[in-house]
């Protein structure tokens, strides 16, 4: 359970390179002045960490790494103490073998390595949830002005907001058994309101959902979007299906 928490602290809050420097600072604890300022910063770290752990234990939803970013300030302050220690440590083992590498040069190389890795990480992977962009583009480029979503998830609501369409949940206009979905959709479509249907499920799962309830499936798949464990399926009303209906 705490492995995930420690992973977030190590990878996101501290960042591995900075964390290694903090470990060296722990080894070099004699350099840390035990004055009032240090005590304040230490209490800040301990109390913040304590509250984050308690929050983590009592939270049902996904725990975001950004909740731990206040600890980053602490890690940065103490990583610099480890920096000089790490330079001396490397000097002991490297300078004997390669005399050209003096302590100053080792420190400059260290700064360059840390800088490149941090800037690389900071600017990499800009496409955060790239499927959102794709779905929003598809909805924006069409003339349809309504989005029907299966569950009221945050992702769906934000897609509707950025695509500039009105969004309704299934539950708000239909019964829970979905028996009236085909009728409701065909009525909406005949009024001239073109509707998308968005579900946070794979296409197969959503079709099985209808099969289990012995309900007809009046939708046509536009595209299935997958990224890591998240899967979205975007549908529109099947026009051919409408002609088969008898009222």
């Amino acid at each position, binding site marked *: 359970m705490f492995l995930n928490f420690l992973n977030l602290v190590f990878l996101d809050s501290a960042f591995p390179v900075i964390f290694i420097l903090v470990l060296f600072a722990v080894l070099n604890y004699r350099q840390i002045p035990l004055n009032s300022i240090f005590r304040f910063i230490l209490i*800040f770290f301990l*109390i913040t960490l304590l509250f984050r752990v308690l929050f983590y234990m009592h939270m049902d939803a996904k725990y975001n790494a950004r909740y731990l970013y*206040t600890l980053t*300030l602490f890690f940065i*302050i103490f*990583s610099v103490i480890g920096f000089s220690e790490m330079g001396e440590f490397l000097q002991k083992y490297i300078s004997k073998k390669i005399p050209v590498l003096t302590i100053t040069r080792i420190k*400059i190389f260290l700064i360059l390595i840390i800088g490149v890795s941090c800037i690389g990480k900071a600017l990499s992977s800009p*496409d955060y949830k790239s499927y959102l962009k794709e779905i929003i583009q598809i909805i924006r480029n069409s003339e349809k002005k309504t989005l029907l979503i299966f569950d009221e998830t*945050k*992702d769906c609501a934000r897609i509707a907001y950025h695509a500039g369409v009105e969004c309704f949940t299934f539950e708000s206009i239909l019964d829970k058994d979905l028996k009236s979905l085909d009728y409701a959709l065909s009525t909406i479509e005949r009024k001239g309101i073109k509707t998308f249907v968005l579900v946070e499920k794979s296409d197969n799962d959503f079709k099985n959902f209808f099969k289990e309830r012995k309900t007809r499936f009046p939708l046509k798949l536009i595209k299935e979007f997958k990224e890591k464990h998240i899967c979205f399926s975007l549908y529109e009303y099947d026009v051919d299906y409408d002609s088969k209906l008898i009222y």
Partner: protein
Amino acid sequence: MDFIHILKNIAKNKAASLILIVLLGIVLRIIRAIEMNRYDVDCYIYFNMAINWANYGANYTYSNCLQTIPPLLPFLMSLGYKLGIQPEITGIFFGIMLGSLIPFCMFYIVKTLLKRADLALLAAFFGAIHPSLVRISVRCLRDSLYIPLIAIALVCAVAAIKNRSVVKWSLFSFVVTLACFARYEGYEFIIIFLIWVFVEIVIKFVGKHNHPFAITHSPATIIDIKYYSCSLFFVLAIFLSLNLFVYYSFSLCQNRYTSPFFSIVNSIIDSIFTK
């Protein structure tokens, strides 16, 4: 002149190095803001709140949107919206501006703590390029205001401890309260402050006399007692009065930490006046 000499010469001029580091931080944040897509979690809630706030005021906003969201970010966005700027742009602007203050904060804290300017510059450099801090700065989230405000609060605390200044503790209280209105986790800082005062008093008096109640009337002890009690009073007074102001200004905003406390106070006052 080789590369290392150039770096050494730059590092000799501390002020110029610090400005260069801060500029690097701003540039990184702007690049990140340009390349990143804007479809961030929760931000549409803040956009809606900001537009409602600008058009109809705070009470309408809190009666129609999520009442548990602290007011600072929607308020700043609504100010921008009144000037004709998109809420999204205002949010990112404040994120970048406050985020680029983090290197200054790191520089000051490390310089005061370790008394070494070279290590302070290194801390400023880490503050400018740390991936988590760069990434959070350009997102339209409450965290992009909260983390720099916490850094500024730390600076105020360090300055107050260094100079034994009650005015700086008051400034600390003001910044912490602003941080509380960005994210409610800011209330932890008041607990941190109270624990710190307790620890300091114990260390000062127990260390001196071996007995906590054996306080002598020496001038130094009296100055210490005055300093801690004044700091405590000002920090709590500013903190409570600002919270009370926000509680009455945005009565529909449900602050899960202070609302229960203030509602009890309110009911007591009501019961006294109705009698």
